[in-house]
């Protein structure tokens, strides 16, 4: 296992400071948090945002068994055995989640899916999956967040509300930093926010454009047309987008005049009408803008290591999510092998849910089917998903109790520095033990 300090310092009553700890609450993956730890409690989380503070300061070790089988306390060994038997007995096993686990654990999860000839999918399929599909269509012009901090003089957020979802995005990466080519920080940047409602982020913007709901695609194509000096019917533009053509024209002038523009987009774009077509329009607009100046785009990813999940699944299978191994080799088909579909279609006959809560947030048919099949759940907390699991493991929390590697939303890999040990096993340890048994039962020696 790879990590800077993979084992947390042994707990003692002493006060302890963990410097440069990494917060895994959101895709910003801030790695500059100084934690004060007293008696296995984090009492201070310096530099953490409101979400990060809640993540660190409210962290409690669950006072419940590390393993429950059929709702009853069991030893870990019993849990591993039962978990492996359930998975091996299935004809259509699915493994889902992964976005709140370190990449080391994600790798083992993909191995298990491979040995089972099973299906592996991540929470990407319900957040930025459409962006992943759009990426396969047109590509992406992008950069690491430090490039935006040092060069970005035009910053646009589309269907994304970082003030509430990624609170340090503005201060650490996109708006406030004084960068190499932006000595005056915020004063050197123009901020534009496009959304269907006036979010809390809107007040950070120099220009806020409230477009009509479900009209992101039309708005983006308006900009694409203007980027290429195509004449548009002003009445129609206003009718479709809810914004006057002159406003779009002014925006395009500003975009062309920028030296380095960046567009961050969120689920307000990817999960509304149009889905991957919206993401594709935004990525294509960014590409078009590179005929005029430098422009980049970046999805604002939510979960701490959802980007790592995309990477690990891709390097091992060739595809980023929604991968089926039923024929003994990886196949990719979003809409067919994605978990909300394998469940709602009643295809999966057993599963493993890793650090995710489909019982709380999937559609009713999907939840009903999941409730009808035996499955294993791994989570640091009790959730509707762990409650209905045949085998439920309470695992240590990554970044607080265990080490490993996390990929920030811009694909930068960052090590974790745990604060204190948990009595519960890490998801890596649980998955390794399940893998060992699955391999034995399936006759795998590799």
């Amino acid at each position, binding site marked *: 296992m790879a990590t800077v300090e993979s084992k947390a310092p042994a707990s003692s009553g002493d006060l302890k400071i963990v410097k440069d700890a990494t917060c895994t609450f959101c895709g910003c993956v801030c790695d500059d948090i100084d934690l004060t730890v007293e008696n296995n409690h984090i009492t201070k989380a310096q530099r953490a945002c409101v979400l990060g503070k809640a993540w660190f300061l409210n962290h409690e070790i669950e006072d419940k068994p590390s393993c429950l089988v059929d709702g009853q306390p069991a030893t870990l060994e019993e849990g591993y055995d039962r978990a492996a038997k359930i998975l091996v007995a299935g004809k259509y096993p699915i493994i889902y989640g992964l976005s709140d686990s370190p990449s080391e654990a994600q*790798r083992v999860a993909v191995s298990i899916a491979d040995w089972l000839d099973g299906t592996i999918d991540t929470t990407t399929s319900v957040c930025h999956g459409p962006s992943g599909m759009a990426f396969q269509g047109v590509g992406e012009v992008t*950069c690491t967040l430090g490039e935006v901090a040092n060069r970005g003089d035009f910053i646009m957020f589309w269907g994304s509300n970082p003030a509430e979802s990624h609170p340090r995005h503005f201060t650490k990466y996109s708006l406030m930093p004084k960068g190499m080519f932006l000595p005056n920080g915020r004063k050197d940047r123009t901020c534009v926010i496009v959304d269907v409602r006036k979010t809390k982020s809107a007040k950070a913007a120099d220009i806020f454009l409230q477009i009509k709901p479900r009209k992101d695609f039309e708005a983006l194509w308006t900009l694409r047309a203007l980027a290429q000096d195509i004449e548009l019917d002003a009445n129609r533009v206003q009718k479709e987008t809810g914004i006057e053509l002159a406003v779009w024209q002014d925006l395009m002038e500003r975009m062309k005049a920028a030296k380095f523009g960046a567009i961050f987009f969120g689920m307000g774009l990817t999960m509304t009408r149009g889905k991957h077509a919206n993401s594709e329009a935004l990525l294509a607009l960014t590409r078009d803008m590179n005929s005029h100046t430098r422009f980049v785009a970046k999805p604002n990813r939510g979960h701490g290591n959802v980007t790592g999940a995309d990477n690990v699944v891709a390097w091992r299978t060739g595809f980023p999510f929604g991968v089926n191994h039923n024929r003994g080799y990886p196949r990719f088909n979003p809409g067919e092998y994605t978990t909300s579909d394998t469940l709602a279609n009643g295809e999966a006959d057993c599963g493993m849910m890793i650090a995710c809560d489909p019982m709380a947030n999937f559609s009713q048919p999907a939840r009903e089917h999941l409730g009808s099949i035996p499955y294993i759940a791994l989570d640091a907390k009790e959730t509707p998903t762990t409650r209905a699991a045949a085998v439920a493991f309470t695992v240590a929390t990554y970044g607080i109790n265990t080490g490993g590697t996390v990929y920030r939303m811009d694909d930068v890999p960052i090590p974790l520095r745990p604060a204190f040990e948990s009595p519960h096993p890490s998801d890596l340890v649980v998955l390794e033990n399940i893998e060992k048994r699955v391999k034995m039962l399936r006759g795998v020696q590799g």
Partner: protein
Amino acid sequence: MSDLIKIYGGSVYDPANGIHGEVRDLWIEGGKIVAQASDPSAPVNRTIDASGMVVMPGGIDMHCHIAGPKVNVARKMRPEEKRRAERVKRTAITHSGTMGSVPSTFATGYKYAGLGYTTAFDAAIPPLAARHAHEEFEDTPCLDKGFYVLMGNNHYLMKAIKDNEPQKLKAFVAWLLGSAKGFAPKLVNPGGVEVWKQKQAGNVHGIDSMVDHFDVTPRQIISQVSQAAEALRLPHPVHIHCNNLGMPGNWETTLESMKALEGRRGHITHIQFHSYGGGDGDENTFNSKVVPLAAYVNSHPNVTVDVGQVLFGETTSMTGDGPLGYFLSNVYGKKWFSGDTEMESGCGITPIKYKNKSLVHALQWAIGLEWYLLVEDPWRVVMSTDHPNGASFLAYPQIIRYLMDRTYRQDVLKTCHPLVGKRSTLADIDREYTLSEIAIITRAGPAKILGLKNKGHLGPGADADITVYTPHENKEIMFEMPRLVIKAGRVIVEEGEMRESPVGKTLYVAPEYDLELEPDIQDWFEKYYSIRWRNYPVDLSYMHDPEVVGMRS
């Protein structure tokens, strides 16, 4: 303790030790080649009859793209080529995977091993993403691996050059290699990628163009980094992707880049892409300039090259050369990825297809072959396709056939665009490679150029990485399916069947540097990077089986 193995009766090609096809017995013990068993009474675990076979050291790919952010983006971006590609099914000892031009990690390891290759170096890793490359390496079995660290557009490096502070530069190169746990300094379009980050279609246009804001030239970067690398005595001093890749008329930039080394050792990579005459973007003027460039290489022993052979078919272009990616995406009009890494590097990816009826593509194919055939000393030219840029590494057996069989070569040339014969010298070259020369350009030579003392030969002390081939008149058939592949003393492939899939070692360097200069690097780092100083260096826990390669004496 691994097995004691004896391989007897084979025709051994071990050019590093002056052995050219003589029948010799080989002993393997503890994963190494030994002169004889340490205990003559010890039972031999396996005796391999190699009578009538050809025995060579394991192949070494010194320039390929197999791991890290760029490669993985290409995997994500190209689902369309995987369904109709060969299927890599899971077995009782191997993982499943996908092929296409950018295979998944496990498939990459198995396929290299299947060709008799046991060592490979990824050519372009941004140090900020080094951890990612190491993680993929652990999932890329059967190979010993290392990578080159992108630094030709690094801000600190350019500033140290501008400020004329060679001691700082030397310390920085060492610190950066050590932080990334990388193997060698890599310059990609030195200076040009930084200009790309600054403005629309930005690039430098020659070796003496000034890099905006940093006030240095590519020539200064090449010269100063090669000096620092020499002072550090790095095993592979500097690996250079020249400016102006792919542009008609770029041969002069390439020549000047070699001159910028001023006699110091340096490796010019995928030189095929840098050997073009013509100009003004006019396809009709495009021609080969291998003759004058090879003449320079032939008379300058400090310069080594690998080819970057193009073969006809579909593939994916991937490069740390951001402006090149932009150029190619405009030429081909396909999907395009560009990714800039703060303070360090860029990246461009786009699908491409090389066609034999295209004059430019057919010339690129011919120019690659000219390079193999016109460099007189095989120790200084290395086989590469710049996988997957020119073609997949799976094309190596085909290239061997082109080099060993001039009739085949000429027959294929006849199917190409008719002007290729006039714009290159390929039609006039009779040279055919011998098996010894093939062993040099695929194993012994790259090991020597990389400073790997335990690789590329079969003398006592060498890593027991060995490939046994069944001779065949058609050299493509001979080299595409070895009879046996041995990695660190274990038989991993027999007749195309995987027997074992060890993870393999990570090869890296740990040069020493003046620690008093580190605070200056830290000050710069903390001012501009988006991650913390302490979270940047990769520690040893990321490396499965690390091996430090020593400095040159």
